């Protein structure tokens, strides 16, 4: 096969080109061509992704060694391969200003991470550096910053997942959105989203990840608000974007802090991980950085307390919910943790603790999401809360050090959750686009394919053997039970409780929708092939994909080494990655979780289908009623966010600022202006008019007065003149005689 692993940028570029073409020409060329362009582009990307995955598998099986390895390592760090310097020296050179030094032996840095690998299982992992290709993006202050692609198992896995689900959604949407008011606009955004998500997962540095992260946020905004004529849709879109923006504060700060912590020279992911895992990392700073980054994860991946946007996001078209809010975008946060695992592992001391914030939030989210799913009447909202709960599982897994478990669950969850969402869409398509479960019922006879796939996916989600969810969820529970050095008991308890809850609420949804009598007003019938075939494919994936990470020893049953833990072998990084313990398959845990899941389904069956059990409890018991109301109001979090925080900011606080601006600040400015005018008036009246002009006029009047006086001498009488003349002459004579 040909090697495109170093040209993977083609994949997101292709989707971006598809976006531009659809944006500018879609309307003109019509809906069929538009959908065709979208589907064709994603198909090509899927094929390329498979090739890339193949390239990567090839690479893992034949890793580069010696000089080639050294060159690759240097290049992977995004540092220019000028000399054969070891990584440690490069980092030293970059961090010398911050006065930190790093262990100079690169072999020991990466060797340490994998010393345990060889011992715990058969089949060692060589340290296989990811394939990194970068170009200079920009320079500031003499530092060059790069933009590039990084391909390893995780990235390849994400590529395939995103492409498959995007392709199925593209195909599904041709029917679901037939006749929609803005069909081409939708497909344009789907292409843009796929391009952004692929760009995100291929990023080689945190700055680029930030760009991709926000771009998928914009696509989410655009797609949630797809039917923007109605305010509630645009409200949901705004809520999604703004809640994510709040989390992004943490993301931005986290990117900045990790950048500076690792020497302030590069955003490169491997550089950050290397620094975090070296012996001289400033763990306190890394802790703050990790927690800030987790802020971003909290909002994007629907963790408590920034999960409130996800259920509202169901206002968008169902295929969007399947693609973005179940399978791909919301896992961007989980991917972030997985990618920067060195930073998190080191900062949160995952290896040595039994309880820390990230694991706790993950566990807590699983429970609150699960509880809320019980009080929903909207099928999509049940699935949304289920997604929140499952995302909690993934975060919890990463938090307890079970990296592969978390990522594996991400992988399997994408498929069965997408199947569930698309199944819900199929149901709604038949029921006049209503998702209200109270108006459904008995659909298993009318929509057999949808029913079958929904059932398979439900069982997978609940974690019933041998479907995919069983394997992935079980690994998470095993990871919590064993932990790294100590067990994460609380998380294990959270996980087990939620296993029960998951089965129960999904059972409730399943029975309300597909069993009993039909309670609605439409005439439901099976959806066309374009809708059902993707469902079948996804359900099939939900069945088989669990086996990609078949444990090494299953109740004593051992498969040959090349068939076990394949997922872990190829996906888990071996380079710039902490040395983590992998919990082996724990039989009692597997049995316990299966019993819990089956128990949950059974309880749901009894309660909802057979109507046994304490029905009407909420009207009899005050406590139950209060609890129910508390759940119905989503823990009053929405009231807090929208009502109190957002409301006071846009309302009283903004108005106060504006009042301050207009009356105080501008009051001063206008006051100065008016005061200047008044002073000018005073100056004019007093100083100018009265005093100065007074003097001017006064002098005039004085002259006139003097003139009036002197006029009296002018009598016109000659004799008087003569007498004055003589008098004057006498005076002069006197002066002449007596003085002179």
């Amino acid at each position, binding site marked *: 096969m040909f090697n495109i692993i170093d040209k993977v940028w083609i994949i997101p570029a292709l989707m971006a080109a598809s976006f531009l073409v659809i944006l500018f020409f879609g309307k003109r060329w019509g809906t069929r061509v538009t959908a065709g362009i979208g589907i064709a582009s994603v198909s090509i990307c899927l094929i390329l992704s498979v090739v890339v995955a193949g390239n990567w598998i090839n690479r893992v099986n034949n890793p580069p060694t010696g000089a080639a390895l050294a060159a690759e390592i240097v290049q992977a760090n995004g540092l220019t391969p000028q000399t054969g310097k070891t990584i440690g020296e490069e980092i030293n050179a970059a961090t010398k200003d911050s006065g930190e030094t790093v262990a100079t032996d690169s072999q020991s840095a990466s060797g340490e991470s994998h010393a345990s690998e060889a011992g715990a299982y058969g089949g060692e992992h060589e340290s296989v550096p990811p394939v990194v290709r970068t170009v*200079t*993006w*920009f*320079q*500031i*202050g*003499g530092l060059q910053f790069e933009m590039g692609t990084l391909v390893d198992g995780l990235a390849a896995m994400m590529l395939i997942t995103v492409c498959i689900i995007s392709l199925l959604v593209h195909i599904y949407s041709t029917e679901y959105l037939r006749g929609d008011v803005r069909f081409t606009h939708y497909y344009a955004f789907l292409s843009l989203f796929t391009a952004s998500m692929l760009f995100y997962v291929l990023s080689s540095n945190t*700055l680029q990840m*930030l*760009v991709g*992260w*926000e*771009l998928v946020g*914009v696509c989410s*905004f655009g797609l949630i*608000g797809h039917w*923007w*004529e109605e*305010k509630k849709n*645009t*409200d949901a*879109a*705004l809520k999604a*974007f*703004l809640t994510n*923006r*709040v989390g*992004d*504060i943490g993301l*931005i*700060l986290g990117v*900045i*802090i990790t*950048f*500076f912590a690792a020497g*302030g020279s590069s955003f490169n992911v491997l550089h950050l991980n290397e620094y975090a895992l070296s012996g001289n990392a400033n763990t306190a700073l890394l802790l703050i950085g990790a927690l800030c980054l987790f802020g971003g994860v909290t909002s994007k991946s629907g963790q408590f307390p920034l999960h409130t946007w996800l259920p509202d996001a169901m206002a968008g078209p169902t295929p969007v919910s399947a693609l973005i809010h179940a399978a791909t975008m919301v896992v961007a946060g989980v991917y972030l943790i997985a990618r920067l695992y060195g930073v998190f592992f080191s900062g949160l001391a995952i290896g040595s603790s039994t309880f820390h914030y990230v694991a706790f939030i993950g566990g807590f989210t699983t429970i609150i999401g699960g509880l809320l799913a019980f009080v929903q009447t909207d099928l999509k909202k049940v699935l949304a809360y289920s997604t929140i709960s499952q995302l909690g599982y993934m975060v919890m897994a990463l938090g307890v050090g079970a990296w592969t478990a978390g990522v594996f669950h991400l992988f399997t969850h994408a498929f069965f959750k997408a199947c569930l969402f698309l199944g819900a869409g199929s149901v709604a398509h038949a029921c006049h686009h209503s998702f209200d479960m109270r108006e459904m019922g008995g659909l298993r006879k009318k929509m057999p394919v949808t029913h079958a796939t929904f059932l398979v996916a439900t069982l997978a989600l609940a974690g019933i053997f041998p479907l995919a969810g069983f394997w992935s969820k079980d690994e998470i529970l095993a990871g919590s039970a064993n932990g790294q050095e100590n067990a994460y008991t609380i998380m294990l308890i959270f996980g087990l409780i939620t296993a029960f809850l998951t089965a129960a609420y999904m059972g409730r949804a399943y029975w309300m929708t597909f069993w009993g009598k039909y309670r609605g007003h439409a005439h439901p019938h099976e959806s066309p092939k374009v809708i059902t075939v993707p469902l079948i494919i996804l359900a099939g994936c939900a069945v088989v994909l669990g086996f990609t990470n078949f444990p090494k020893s299953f109740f004593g049953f051992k498969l040959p080494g090349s068939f076990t833990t394949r997922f872990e072998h190829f996906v888990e990084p071996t380079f710039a990655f902490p040395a983590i313990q992998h919990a082996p398959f724990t039989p009692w845990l597997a049995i316990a979780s299966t019993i819990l899941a089956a128990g949950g389904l059974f309880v749901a069956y009894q309660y909802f289908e057979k109507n046994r059990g304490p029905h009407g409890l909420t009207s009899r018991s005050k406590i139950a009623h209060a609890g129910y109301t508390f759940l119905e109001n989503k823990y009053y979090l929405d009231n807090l966010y929208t009502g109190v925080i*957002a409301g006071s*900011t*846009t309302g009283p*606080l*903004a*108005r*106060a*600022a*504006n009042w301050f*601006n207009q009356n105080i*600040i*501008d009051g001063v*400015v206008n006051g100065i*202006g008016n005061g200047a005018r008044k002073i000018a008036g005073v100056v004019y009246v007093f100083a100018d008019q009265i005093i100065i002009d007074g003097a001017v006029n006064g002098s005039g009047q004085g002259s006139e007065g003097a003139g009036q006086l002197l006029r009296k001498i002018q009598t016109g009488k000659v004799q008087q003149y003569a007498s004055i003349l003589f008098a004057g002459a006498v005076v002069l004579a006197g002066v002449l005689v007596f003085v002179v």
Partner: protein
Amino acid sequence: MKDFLNSWGISLLVFLPLVGALAMLVVPKAKEQFHKVVALAASLVVGFIGILLMTNFDYDASGRLQFVVDMAWIPIINSRYIVGIDGISLPMIALTLLIVPLCIIYSWNRFPEPRNPKAFLILILILETGMLGSFVAQDLILFFVFFEVVLLPMYFMIGVWGGEKRQYASLKFFLYTLFGSALMIVAFLALYFLSDKVSIDGQMMHSFDVRLLPELATGISTGAALWIFGGMFIGFGIKVPMFPFHTWLPDAHTQAPTVGSVILAAVLLKLGTYGFIRIAIPILPGAAEKWAPFIGLLAVIGIIYGALCCLAQTDMKRLIAFSSVSHMGFVMLGIATLTTFGLQAAIFGMVAHGLITGMLFFVAGSTKDRYHTLDISRLGGMLKSMPHMGWILGFSVMASLGLPGLAGFWGEFPAILAAYEPGLGLNVAFFRVLMVVAAIGTVLSAAYLLWMYQRVGFGVPSKEFEEDPHLHDVTFSEWLAWTPILILIVVLGFVPNIIFKVTDGAVSRTIAIVNGLGG
């Protein structure tokens, strides 16, 4: 060619618009077509000269002033005609050269009441001279002259062609900025008299030369330097506009005609920040260091305060005006950190803000033309009535809130990053607090912009405008005027190196001066 450009390039660039204006003066105002063509031709020729300068610019030596002209002007006070371009001025000049022709194209068929294209276009050309002159001047008096030249044309533009309260707004704008300039010239004179002397033709005289003053001003006592910097701070700060000197801006923008708002927002505001980077900080680095925390604090207050006021606005243009206050807060924060990251963020932010807010004001103006109102509560459903306009507004909104991948991000993110590790001896903890608050400011930006867009773009048109035939979509002249800006916003967002590479040398040099002489 290079020699010609070296000696005449900049002078031609700065004064050619005036020549165009003179040519227009003698022709009677009835010949509108002539006036429009001459004005556009003048701005395009100037643009062409600018392109020549940019292609002949040595990008590897962007830290050095190029195309320098140094001639005697007022020998008795040793004020010389010194002009030059370096990496800091070049993006600003490029921005000006782009915006002015686009404004003229936009105005082609829509001059605001009372019409008189002759006077309007002459004023735009005089503005162009003033703006370009300010960005190339390397002598304090020369800079001051060009700085003031832009005031009168804008005063007339607002006062004659503006909205209802135009007299108040134009007078407020003029007097407020003039007050700042008065303090600024006092500061300049103080600099002149207190700095060391240089030998000019055998005689020892003080100097206004911006290139020499950093060295010459080292002898000024700290107290005096603080006062001088304060004078310049007020002068430039009013123009930026910084909180709390910003109140002239909303009124000026709301009442100004569309093109006036665009030029005001895109370029005139940048004169203030440019003054900080070019003059205030390199010449008085010690005082800059003392003032920096205060400037940073006011900048961050401006970010939050501007955003909060935006949330309370009911007039679209006033909302965009307050958003300018908020965005310039990021620019000033970048400047206050006194690092290469910060200053580069500031310059990029200046260009990005110029393009994005200019675009927003263009859209607001076109909205006003069609709806005859900018009252947000009466607008709505633009995406249904005028889809292209709605899309452009949505795009501009996304750019304005600093979405990565579009130009605005590179004005905000490096500024926040720079605040983590400020330069010289600045208080790290204080700046980190500022950093966190500025990051919170990004949420508020998104909030007010998206909320405005939800009310204006989304939804359905209100009853009032449902059947209005005036709501036609984007016209040809609007497309012509807007496409370059839209493309640039995307290109700069994805390839920020276009600007960063140019400014890097000059900013590094400035920070080296600051670190060398300051502290």
